[in-house]
């Protein structure tokens, strides 16, 4: 994180230097930002995600409508 110094007017003084905002704006920048799938890097991570995130088809240990105790 880069700290930004901003100049502001203070009562009874001339311009003073203060520490600026340090938050990230959250606006996507660059071509790859926003493409969430790049967060999963290794094949192991991707397979693990399929078992958790796409558990409806590839997971074994959860309880959705089709895996409840008393199937319809």
């Amino acid at each position: 994180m880069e700290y930004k110094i901003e100049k502001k007017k203070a009562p009874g003084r001339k311009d003073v230097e203060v520490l600026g905002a340090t938050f990230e704006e959250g606006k996507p920048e660059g071509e790859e930002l926003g493409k969430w799938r790049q967060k999963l890097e290794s094949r192991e991570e991707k397979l693990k995600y399929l078992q958790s995130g796409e558990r409806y088809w590839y997971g074994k240990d959860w309880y959705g409508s089709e895996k409840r105790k008393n199937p319809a």
Partner: protein
Amino acid sequence: MAEAETKSIDNASIKMIEKAAADGANTAFDRAETMKPCPIGAEGTCCKNCGMGPCRVPLPKGKEETPKEKKERRGICGATAETIAARNFIRMIAGGAAAHSDHGRGVAKLFLAVAKGEAPGYEIKDEQKLLQLALDFGVTIGDRSNNEIAIDIGEKALAEFGKQEGEVLFLRRAPLKRQELWRREGIAPRGIDREIVEIMHRTHIGVDQDYRSLLRQGVRASIADGWGGSMIATELQDILFGTPAPVLGRINLGVLKRDEVNLIIHGHEPLLSEMIVVAAQEPQMIELAKSKGANGISIAGMCCTANEILMRHGVPLAGNFLQQELAIVTGAVDVMVVDIQCIMQSLTTVAECYHTKIITTSPKAHIPGAIHIEFDEHNAMESARAIVRTAIENFPNRGSNIDIPKEQTNLVAGFSHETINYLLGGIYRASYRPLNDNIINGRIRGVAGVVGCNNARVKHNENHVTMVKELIKNDVLVLQTGCSAIACAEAGLMTPEAAEYAGEGLASVCEAVGIPPVLHLGSCVDNSRILMAATAMVKDGGLGDDISELPVAGAAPEWMSEKAISIGQYFVGSGVFTVFGATWPTLGSPEVTEFLFKDLENICGGMWAFEPNPIKAAHLMIDHIDKKRKALGIDKARERILYDMAMRRELEAA
């Protein structure tokens, strides 16, 4: 009201309709006015399947049909109006399913060539989707390379088209109850091509002459489209070009640029257009453009090719089906390159009034008067460069009658099923649970898929926008594809700010998640993404065990193509109540219409409806959603009870 204002609700289109008239360019809007639809064909009661006809068997006008008249209402071969209407209807399904599926086959062939290293310039971009399909198709993963896995997947995908026995593999993705229903009813497709061919056989003179049997085969073939050909196209395109994620784009004719070379990519396949996007960014191409007096090269999309490259690259979208001629009318389009489907033959005629060159690229789609630069997957980049070069060299030939409308709107596109799942829960808890919970608690009343074409018999974009606004106003989350998505994006409904049009409940959820109330899911083959989203809703739990139990509905308020009928039929065949506007092609046979509108519900759990008024159609959908909410017991807010241990023990003992 000026005449052009009766033809479209979109200001950019209205201006270009007026300009076309001034320039002497004849467009679909003019032709729709001068040529009325054949009233017998429109109702599906004209049979031209043999040389004894065409046989016309219309309903009597303005009076009830007597039993005697009904008995006599037959073709020369004896086929009844029911048989004829059903034949015509399922031949539309065959045409639509063939179009989507042949698109899928083309993608599968390219995919295999990429896996074998025979298609330079392409690569596997989404390994995760590759692994997902390996799990779907039972392909070994282990330590094998992506290309080794992809070869097996490509071969299995291609085999789906010519498979003779068994079932289309992606049926296994559907809810278990739905799979059982398809098998029980004998409508689980065996292979994609087989079901389409069987329609052509059954509808030949003297074969299947029971409308119920014909229509069942129509359902089967349509499922082969939605859960087969279309799904293969979507999934393999995702592996090759990336699974879509939200991207900010711009839309409407205002994206064309006066000072740059304008190249429009129109059609449905992203195979070549992906390469054109890359070629147009090459420094030598930009230099060449500058040498011709342009400030750069601007790529814009049209129809579903546009949806594909918008979702993956943020390439601006110039318009939908009825805007293809109007883009040329601006006088600023240097090349319009087309691939397959929904391309008007009149493009070359309109282009004669301006300097625009039309380039066809598919060996399956030629147009007299167009330049043909064939797409060859083994040498795609060269084809792409030749196209971009042609556009640049045509830039100095622009005439003085250039008028680019200012209208352009922002939209957020790229809501694949995977991305919706991710957005609702993040990497570590991706889930449809928040959606289901908000449907159960009533903030979201239900979900609607509003898709399909433009139809020159209907005021351009009006039905789409009116219907979607009515749905979101009533807290129905809308998922969109194709030209319908483009229509609503042009009306500004695909940005988070559009929550202002939504009901309080839906708006609160959209604001919390940061999504628009109308989600862009892609092109028309990407209706398969809606099937996946619906399946995920079922599997997550709390909303029944099948798609037919969900509070959801579908619509195509301005449909015109055979593909739309196939899409509608696979929505219905998957359990979704589906309303079409504009026209309905079986009205000449009350029995066939009754079967599609009522009896199919007993077979598939979903059924068709026809309502040309978009507000009334939206309320049919809302009524259906409410019916499903009531059946699920979520129509009324329930008192929340905090169970103590004694109550839990009591519950477990019961």
